[in-house]
């Protein structure tokens, strides 16, 4: 009883704050380690299995070797160069698609409803076409240079963004628009204060979908025909049988993908803060 009372008093007086902080930090570290225990164990097995000889080391390199390869690539600047090239392509195609698709979606969904109804089946059909099978056609039309890769990304990003924007603007609650209008809001303000925020969850969903598809396609496109970029790095490592580099590139790609996903979740939370569970897709 007394000790409990003492603790309360001590806590109030802030005597132990230093110790508490350390304790809290320790708890936090323990919690993080506990949460990622499966990953740590997995990496541990991955390290041990090739070294002991459960799996051939020529096929699967242990993580320590991969990390040191990664470090070498990083220090020599090769990795940064390839990441830059890949990201440049992906971002360029993605931004072009977003810049075209979002306004177009607003126009189609908001103003030209009949036109939208006629066009939607075509858009769905085009979005359904497997982008891989279009790749040869893109190469024929645009050559094997940058343009074909960027237009490929553009193509795969366009459809999810466009279709989601159209769905979003069509599903804006009529009541919101009417009540805003009845309060005398019109034109640009109506658009920016009501329609745009109400549509943004759908737009974000489209952007997120297309960013992951874009990255996927980019790697594929670079593996099929490129002279730089992460996909090329994988392809090159495979043909030259440099397995650690192969794994290092794969890990880099996955990390980049996770990072982009995370970025979108943060952006979404920031922009759609009015929605209760924005990341629940």
């Amino acid at each position, binding site marked *: 009883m007394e000790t409990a009372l003492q603790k309360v008093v001590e806590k109030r007086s802030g005597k132990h704050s230093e110790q508490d902080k350390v304790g809290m930090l320790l708890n936090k570290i323990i919690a993080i380690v506990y949460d990622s225990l*499966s990953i740590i164990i997995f990496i541990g097995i991955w390290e041990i299995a090739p070294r002991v000889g459960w799996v051939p080391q020529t096929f699967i390199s242990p993580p320590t070797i991969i990390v040191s390869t990664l470090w070498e690539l990083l220090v020599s600047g090769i990795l940064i160069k390839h990441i830059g090239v890949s990201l440049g392509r992906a971002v360029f195609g993605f931004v072009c698609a977003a810049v075209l698709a979002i306004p177009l979606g607003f126009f189609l969904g908001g103003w030209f409803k*009949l036109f939208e109804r006629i066009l939607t089946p075509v858009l769905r059909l085009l979005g359904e076409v*497997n982008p891989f*099978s279009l790749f040869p056609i893109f190469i*024929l039309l645009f050559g094997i240079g940058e343009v074909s890769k960027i237009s490929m990304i553009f193509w795969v990003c366009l459809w999810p963004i466009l279709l989601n924007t159209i769905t979003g603007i069509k599903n804006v609650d009529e009541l919101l628009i009417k009540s805003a209008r009845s309060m005398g809001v019109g034109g640009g303000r109506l658009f920016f204060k009501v329609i745009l925020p109400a549509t943004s969850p759908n737009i974000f969903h489209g952007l997120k979908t297309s960013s992951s598809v874009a990255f996927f396609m980019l*790697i594929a496109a670079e593996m099929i025909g490129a002279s730089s970029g992460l996909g090329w790095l994988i392809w090159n490592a495979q043909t030259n049988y440099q397995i650690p580099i192969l794994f290092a590139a*794969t890990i880099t*790609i996955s990390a980049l993908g996770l990072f982009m996903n995370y970025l979108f979740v943060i952006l979404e939370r920031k922009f759609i803060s009015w929605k209760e569970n924005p990341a629940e897709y």
Partner: protein
Amino acid sequence: MKDHVNSLADKLIDVSGIVIFFLLWEIAPRLGIVDGQFIPPLSQVLLAVGKLAADGSLFIHIAASLQRSFIGFVLAIAVAVPAGFILGGVFPALSRQLRPLLRVFGQINAFSLFPIFILFFGIGEVAKVSIIFWSTIWPVLFTTIVGVQNVDPLYIKSARSIGADKFTIFSKVILPGAAPVIFTGIRTGASHAFLMLIAAEMIGASAGLGWLVQNSAVNNIMPRLFAATMTIAFLGMTINYLLYLLEDNLLDWKQSSERG
């Protein structure tokens, strides 16, 4: 009568976009608006489809592709659904532990793993089937765990209080309760699988629709390239539709399964 006309007009509006698109596709190359060598008119593409169908090779390629994706897909479901039930239902703590790992696995670009799969399994069927398996298993496993854990505990409790045994609870309560979520995973898995299949066949195969695309591109036979592309799109849509149909039939207790 008027309603009839109206609904007919509605249908006409709905299909008019597709019709106009196909007409443009036919006319534009013929008038030289786009290069007919690169984009052949629709009639030539359809002719190519007919030719492929007539000599039976189209069906061989479709069968090869479907067989690969089907084996990989079914294997993945056969592993992932029971594993998901066991993890989600019996070992919830373990499944919480495994969650980050599963997330990382699902995030790994299956395409970048392709060389590793080839190293392991050679360039034969096994590599292709296992890449399908890999790209299907993670979404299905993940959604199964989530589905099992999101079954309302009240249902389970009330079933138990009426005296239902474990098997009945599983087959009558947990399985139907988790099924809608599992289906979302299966649909995602199916579309991933089909995408990856075509890619895998384009890189290394001697039959299949992806091979047909690649071969036509290499030999510059454009109508056949478009014919294969159209077949792939059509097949993808059919698979999607079949899964919807299956879902609607299996989940008929659900008032309206979401169409997304």
